[in-house]
């Protein structure tokens, strides 16, 4: 019988992301698995390829990068703080296209399972399953567990 040894949990501070963290903690405890949290800062739009004539000030990208790294650290810390001592957990903060970065990390860490919230903090609030989660469901090589946040408004 296969076992879950490495679980990857993408986090962004959203309600369903927190539910994913809880679910991961429960399963990791039962399987003696290691949890890897990953936060992806999508800076490509801000820092990415601008045409030469635009020439953004170098200080512009500097401070934004610092802020984003700080935000990533806080989001990862929030998740890591929820994990009991008995479970091994690590946080990773990367930059890039969220779905691709998560899939890359899943490959690199050879995870057995991805646990992800159904939707994050994205703009399209009507969506039941966010674009990143959707992309993971379609492209991950391992099983993907989609967790819903409790709905406050019904």
């Amino acid at each position: 019988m296969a076992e879950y040894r490495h679980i990857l949990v993408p986090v962004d501070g959203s309600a369903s992301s927190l539910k994913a963290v809880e679910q991961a903690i429960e399963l990791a405890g039962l399987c003696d698995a290691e949890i890897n949290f990953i936060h992806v800062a999508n800076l490509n739009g801000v820092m990415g390829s601008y045409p030469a004539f635009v020439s953004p000030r170098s200080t512009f990208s500097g401070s934004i990068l610092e802020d984003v790294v700080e935000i990533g650290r806080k989001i990862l810390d929030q998740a890591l703080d929820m994990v009991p001592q008995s479970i091994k957990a690590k946080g990773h903060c990367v930059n890039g296209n969220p779905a691709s970065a998560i899939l890359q990390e899943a490959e690199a860490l050879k995870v057995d399972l991805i646990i992800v919230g159904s939707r994050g903090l994205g703009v399209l609030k009507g969506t039941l399953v966010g674009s990143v989660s959707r992309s993971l469901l379609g492209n991950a090589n391992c099983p993907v567990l989609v967790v819903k946040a409790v709905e406050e408004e019904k």
Partner: protein
Amino acid sequence: MDKIRRILVPVDGSESSDRAISQAITLADVCEAKIAFLYVANINQLAINACLSDAILEAVTKAGNVILDKALADVPESITAEGFAETGSPAVVILDFANSEGIDMIVMGSRGLGIVKGVLLGSVSQYIVEQSKCPVLVVK
């Protein structure tokens, strides 16, 4: 976080479904949960009443039982598992079952036996992931 006590596994005999069965067994073992396998024959009451011959109904029922029996045979002694056969629109029946039968998690294949083979996430799996209140584990 709610304990996982009962896992629903929709089955249709596809490869994806077989892998979902394995994953569900792993989970049931770890969580000490029960498994409910569900086969949904995609025929509705109108068709059954109006034009489906007994022979067709018999064939469909038999096919469903073969799939359910195979799933149940894979489950080790230590895990409690049951098989259920229903008719109707698969996505709707699966969701109704999950809501009314105290299901804590759904484990299903990413795509079944449907015609559109290029699709990464089948229409039934997609619908379940969107509408389910409980967590859904999608297995390729």
